[in-house]
């Protein structure tokens, strides 16, 4: 039965936005926490840790996100774990985000001049205090613009969760389209919603970058 695209269909799409946002937030927070450890490992003095983090980053950056979602989703089934598309998408996106944020933050940590590490260690600060009070506060300033910018990638990345059956914005679009057969209209609206979510973040990222690039204080 074919329906026309109407107000109800539009509301259905809008309500799916919450799942896109929730998935993005989870991937971002989870990816941020894991990514911090990835970045710390990547800049560590301990070689095995560094190699491990490098490998982790390369695997996730070198394979398509969709394959990563497939592997988590179907891998769980192989291992006999009953994983819902929702959990699989959250786990997959978290891991993927952690690799990318880890690599972005590695650069930010390394952008803090060597002299800062030396001054802090010569004052007797050990690694945890040195990181927490001296290096990370300075790295965060550099990290904010690219991190906000990367949030855009995370939001767009959640659309792939549609393929493993999680009903977020893109999947909702497919469902509406199956009922209305107005793909251009439906996916046009879906794309416009994504744009409305992402564009402000892109702008914010550019603003922040311009502000931090300006001579400080």
């Amino acid at each position, binding site marked *: 039965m074919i329906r026309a695209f109407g107000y109800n269909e539009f509301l259905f799409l809008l309500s799916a936005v919450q799942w896109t946002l929730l998935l993005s937030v989870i991937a971002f927070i989870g990816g941020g926490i894991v990514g911090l450890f990835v970045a710390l490992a990547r800049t560590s003095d301990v070689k095995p840790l560094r190699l491990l983090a490098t490998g982790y980053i390369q695997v996730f950056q070198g394979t398509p996100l969709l394959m990563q979602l497939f592997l988590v989703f179907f891998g769980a089934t192989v291992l006999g774990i009953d994983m819902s598309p929702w959990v699989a998408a959250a786990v997959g996106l978290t891991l993927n985000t952690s690799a990318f944020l880890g690599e972005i933050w590695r650069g930010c940590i390394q952008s803090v001049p060597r002299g800062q590490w030396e001054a802090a260690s010569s004052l007797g600060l050990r690694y945890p205090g040195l990181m927490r009070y001296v290096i990370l506060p*300075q790295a965060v300033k550099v990290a904010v613009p690219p991190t906000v910018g990367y949030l855009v990638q995370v939001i767009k990345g959640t659309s792939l969760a549609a393929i493993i059956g999680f009903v977020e914005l893109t999947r909702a679009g497919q469902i509406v389209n199956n009922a209305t057969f107005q793909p251009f209209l439906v996916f046009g609206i879906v794309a416009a919603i994504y744009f409305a979510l992402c564009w402000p973040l892109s702008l914010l990222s550019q603003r922040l970058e311009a502000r931090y690039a300006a001579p400080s204080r």
Partner: protein
Amino acid sequence: MAVASEPTRDGIAPAMSADVVIRMEGVQKWYDHFQVLKDIDLEVHRGERIVICGPSGSGKSTLIRCINQLERHQKGRITVNGVELGPHHRQLDMVRREVGMVFQSFNLFPHLTVLENCMLAPMKVRGTTRAEAKATAIRYLERVRIPEQADKYPGQLSGGQQQRVAIARSLCMNPKVMLFDEPTSALDPEMVKEVLDTMIGLAEDGMTMLCVTHEMGFAKSVAHRVIFMDRGEIVEQNTPEEFFTAPKSERTRSFLGQILAH
């Protein structure tokens, strides 16, 4: 042998081990296949003030950075305040607490105010209370004559002021020894004096100091001993009088000829 509480300026300090703050024995260091330090032997006594000079690349920075292990040596022994530096963190922590370091490029923490720069290590390393750390910081900022800058950020200060803050920041840890690596080399000429005056003040208070510098006036008026390094070796060491008027080695003479010509 009489034990002088402070080494006399016209003689090398008495070799009482209790008075030795830093002892380096046969210290060697390589960067890959390039040997930066060749068999360094050095004793620094309590209250002694040593100036290290030598051509660029001779290993001066590397030598003092080995003392607080910003660089690791590969051979030989380094003992600081009775603690031998080894592979363990415990010794390293003990040594770094007692050894202050001042860098050519100041290396103040730009995200912290001057006061916070001075309070961080005492609070986080020594576990001092905030109030106590603040009192100490203010005392040392007064001593380097910039208490009025306490709430500014390093970026708002001149180079000379920043370097004086860096000295105060080190002093707040109450170190037994202060290491200086060309503390005035990055400064505009008009600011060199204020930093040197601060260092002279420290010297007058009896601080043990190891100072890499080419400020020969400072060496003459403050140092008990001048060490000349070249190609990773200590070529010559003597009292400033002897060192400047009667250098023994040809390398020292040509080096002095070069820097005094400027």
